[in-house]
């Protein structure tokens, strides 16, 4: 792997940037691997990277039916935070946050992680009580957090309508300074390049059409490019997880929904943090390019079509204009949808399954991007050892039978 550096940039300028090497190979599938990862999004590529780099499993394939990071990795609003209420999820997301903090150096790839802070607004007395409870829980778990009043919020974001005459006046917010945003595509590309450098085969345009299962154990997958064998298979396929689970002969407690997002035309720097509101229900940040990146809730019906309905877009923008009247005449540039796999308790599933050797990492719902490094790391550890990593252990799919749910609905600071 050619390392990137300022010196390299100057050197390549001399040859008009025409001699950069490809970031990853495009290999033909081998007959057999130690581990197959199904799904070449951020989480899948991170899993492959950590498997090869930290856990010594180098004979790994990542199978992707489309192109790398073309699903939800390319479709999210790039927010990274770890201020979750319950110990189990706090541990998982904070594990990810610590990896984010050194990720660009680790990958030798600029993922543009910008710790510009995240505000979760409160508009009612109950919001403020929940925020206090959550910030206290965060601090006990070693996660940074502060409770701000309306004045504190107004000082951080002068352009927001924090007046008492707003329809839903801002009463305060939780503030996580270490939170922020990252460049979503760079995360997928950085992990792909790193994994490839450690010998991982990334097989794009290869679709898994079935699992090879004998005596309750997995020994490979069928694909449109032939059968590939492996005794360990990890599925990280977000919205399509239910479809794959069905191929394995079991069900998951997931429902796939469209989640829409949109960006405006680029404007001059005006918003230097991330603002989220559960009550008015929208979230917004400004990218380095200058566009406002906007999202809100899912479309309520099940769907695999990577698009949603217009009323949802309208509600989202109503919320944004309610909070930021100054944006009322900004024009929107692009709008899209991704398919999120939502879990009944708004927490992911990182788990063994009824099929031995087959593991699933799914159910991230609307908030998977922020967890990409942590999810990949604990999933890789679990695949390598055959036993779930302690941080992943509580996220078993069998919690929906035992009743040990991790109820992050609402508690996580944004509706799912």
């Amino acid at each position: 792997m050619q390392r990137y550096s300022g010196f390299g940039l100057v050197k390549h300028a001399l040859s008009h940037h025409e001699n950069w090497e490809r970031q990853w190979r495009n290999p033909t599938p081998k007959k057999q691997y130690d581990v197959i990862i199904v799904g070449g999004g951020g989480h899948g590529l991170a899993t492959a990277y950590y498997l090869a780099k930290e856990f010594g499993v180098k004979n790994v394939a990542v199978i992707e039916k489309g192109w790398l990071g073309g699903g939800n990795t390319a479709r999210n609003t790039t927010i990274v935070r770890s201020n979750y209420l319950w110990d189990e999820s706090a541990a998982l997301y904070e594990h990810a946050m610590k990896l984010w903090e050194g990720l660009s150096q680790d990958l030798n790839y600029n993922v543009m992680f910008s710790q510009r802070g995240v505000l979760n607004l409160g508009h009612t007395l109950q919001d403020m009580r929940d925020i206090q409870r959550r910030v206290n829980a965060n601090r006990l778990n070693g996660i940074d957090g502060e409770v701000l009043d309306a004045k504190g919020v107004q000082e951080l974001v002068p352009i927001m309508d924090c007046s008492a005459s707003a329809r839903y006046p801002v009463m305060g917010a939780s503030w996580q300074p270490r939170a922020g945003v990252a460049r979503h595509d760079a995360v997928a590309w950085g992990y792909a390049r790193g994994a490839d450098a450690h010998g991982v085969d990334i097989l794009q345009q290869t679709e898994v059409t079935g699992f090879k299962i004998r005596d309750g154990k997995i020994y490979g997958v069928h694909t449109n490019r032939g059968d590939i064998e492996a005794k360990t298979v990890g599925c990280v396929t977000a919205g399509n997880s239910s479809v794959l689970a069905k191929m394995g002969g079991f069900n998951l407690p997931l429902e796939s929904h469209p989640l829409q997002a949109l960006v405006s035309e680029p404007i001059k720097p005006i918003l230097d943090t991330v603002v989220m509101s559960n009550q008015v229900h929208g979230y917004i940040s400004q990218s380095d390019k200058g566009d406002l990146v906007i999202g809100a809730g899912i479309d309520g019906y099940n769907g695999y079509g990577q698009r949603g309905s217009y009323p949802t877009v309208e509600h989202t923008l109503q919320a944004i204009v309610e909070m930021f009247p100054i944006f009322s005449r900004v024009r929107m540039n692009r709008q899209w949808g991704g398919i999120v796999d939502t879990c009944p308790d708004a927490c992911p599933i990182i788990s063994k399954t009824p099929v031995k050797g087959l593991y699933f990492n799914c159910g991230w719902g609307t908030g998977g991007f922020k967890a990409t490094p942590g999810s990949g790391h604990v999933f890789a550890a679990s695949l390598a050892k055959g036993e779930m990593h302690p941080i992943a252990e509580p996220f078993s799919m069998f919690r929906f039978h035992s009743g040990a749910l991790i109820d992050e609905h609402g508690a996580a600071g944004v509706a799912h």
Partner: protein
Amino acid sequence: MFYIYCPYCGEHREEEEFHPKGQAHLERPKEPEACSDEEWGDYLFFRDNPRGVHHEMWVHAVGCRKFFNVTRHTVSYEILETYKMGEQPSITADSQSQAREGAAVSQQEGVRA
């Protein structure tokens, strides 16, 4: 944007009058206390999540406020039929021909009005 036929009002109305309410034809176990943890968990949390024909409940929230059932394709989003509570669907995944499935998937661009 969906344009949904409410079987009780007998009219097509816009999506904003309705709310989706999840999978249709779920049956609450007659004796919950007699259920195993698996059976009860399956009833509470596990849902069909097909990539294809799906039967789901909707409520005409700002209309007649009645619940009814919709058969819809989850990739093309095409509404295949709506029918009253207590009735059975006339279109199912099995009754849909393979050709129709293929056509629906190839129509992925644009929501059907």
